């Protein structure tokens, strides 16, 4: 499995060219370019207000750019909503995590794309296949080494910050076939838990999924390419 810096000449998996986004008189993205190669972990770093989130949100479908082009595996795509990006195999872990605290871990993993029972129970009664969903949720958490939580049916509100982050990452890894985007995954976490999330990123990549993550402070991630962003333009890239 290739790791780190890309092979020269390879086609970027996710590419953006000249993205522009303005909010009134504020320019959030100013001709931003972006390349993510297969099997790569790309860090987007920049200060608050530099345009990290705008870039990340444009790639995940949560923001529609005013101009510019996004290409996935060479072909142009136009995401109108996060659902479009999800359908294309791009999953996002939002800074707010987008979990529903009063629902269980398994419910949250499948929120918005629940599995239904086979046969008339599923088609007519719309009955959920809870057993399969719980099994898959448990598998996904185990794969990422997170299945030390007591029960998959535990409510998310009873989990710690790091555990919630783990559930959100596991959800993205379970459904993201191509790219997992993480918006400031370590912003709300302590040093120890941040370290664990960075290990998680490696785990996700080892499964053949490219990762984009954003952070405010530059951590020396020795072999990871970095795109630094400043005043809406990408100023340094691999």
């Amino acid at each position, binding site marked *: 499995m290739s790791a780190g810096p890309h092979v020269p000449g390879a086609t970027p998996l996710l590419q953006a060219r000249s993205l522009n986004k303005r909010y009134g008189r504020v320019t959030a993205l100013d001709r931003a370019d972006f390349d993510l190669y297969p099997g790569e972990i790309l860090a987007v770093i920049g200060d608050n207000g530099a345009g990290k989130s705008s870039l990340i949100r444009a790639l995940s479908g949560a923001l529609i750019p005013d101009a510019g082009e996004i290409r996935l595996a060479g072909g142009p795509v136009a995401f109108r909503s996060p659902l479009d990006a999800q359908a294309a195999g791009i999953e996002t872990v939002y800074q707010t995590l987008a979990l529903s605290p009063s629902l269980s871990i398994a419910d949250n993993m499948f929120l918005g794309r629940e599995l239904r029972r086979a046969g008339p129970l599923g088609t007519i009664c719309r009955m959920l296949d809870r057993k399969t969903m719980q099994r898959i949720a448990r598998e996904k958490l185990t794969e990422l080494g997170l299945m030390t939580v007591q029960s998959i049916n535990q409510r998310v509100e009873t989990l710690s910050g790091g555990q919630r982050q783990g559930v959100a990452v596991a959800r993205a890894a379970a459904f993201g076939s191509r790219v997992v985007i993480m918006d400031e995954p370590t912003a709300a976490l302590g040093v120890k838990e941040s370290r*664990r999330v960075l290990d998680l990123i490696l785990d996700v990549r080892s499964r053949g999924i490219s990762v984009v993550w954003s952070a405010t402070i530059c951590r020396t991630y020795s072999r990871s390419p970095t795109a630094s962003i400043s005043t809406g333009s990408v100023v340094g890239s691999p």
Partner: protein
Amino acid sequence: MTDIGSNRPAAQAFELVLDKGESRVAEFEVRARSPLQKLQHFLHANPTAVPAIVLLLAVAAFGLIVGSRFLSMFNLSLIIQQVTIIGVIGVAQTLIVITAGIDLSVGAIMVLCSVIMGKLAVTIGLPAPAALFVGVAAGAGCGVLNGTLVTRLKLPPFIVTLGTWSIFFALNLWYSASETIRSQEVAKIAPLLQALGTPVNILGARFTYGSFFMLGLVALIWFVLNRTAFGRHLYAVGDDPDAARLSGIRTDRILFSVYVIAGVICALGAWTLIGRIGSISPQAGQTSNLDSITAVVVGGASLFGGRGSIVGTLIGALIVGVFRNGLALSDVDVLWQEFAVGWLIIIAVALDQWIRKVSA
């Protein structure tokens, strides 16, 4: 697989101590908890436990105070009859409250629908099933109005339903011309409308079809809430609408449909109302708006959304019914019944706040 460890970044100075410390992150610390904290955690994990315990205690207390007059099968089944209407309307209210909304118009929708059913069947002479159908459709229509105002105009549900409460009540007075349709007339022309009042005697207990209808509705909505994606989405929308939206849930569509479903359930409540009182009066069910909220709140649902259960609401309605019935049998003045129910609401909400503060 390449060795993941080799790709690991070099530890920074502030991380060097980490290897000496604990490496567990996603693990449960089992801390010593005081008995009170244990109770708080138990109640947090089992939201219907509180109302269930309160119901048992209330039945036991009135059994001791009033004796066999209260504990007789006949009286206990009478309580179930007495809570049928609030039980049905409470189901509608629970759905709305789970989405962090509130519906002040449920009682008005019910009375309006009962008047429509009665007028069409008795005065105009439409076949009873058709009158019933139009009544249910009218309930759905009321829900469409509420749902549209909440999702399209983005008005707070409290304000929307405060307004539609008056609107539906005025329509009800206009359409009925403030006249009551007598029970005998309904029985003669459209007995189907009173069908849910048909008594069923089992071992000295006296139920009505309405009681079973309520239990069936509770079972159906329990299934929808707990075993279908729609039910899970309802909780998600009430819990955190932004998170629900980012998960791909169409929150406005969920909210809209929940008001329509509530309208339909209120129309079914109209059918049980006619069965219960026999006649069709534009003045009936005046207190059911607030009674339904009482049942939901006493049943453990949170007005902040995301928490609440249909079984809890049924138990909540039964608690209120037991208090009213027990106090009445103790020859306590009606005003003290209201006094007791008032405290019940406040204690229920205070308990909910305490349970929500549970430390993770």
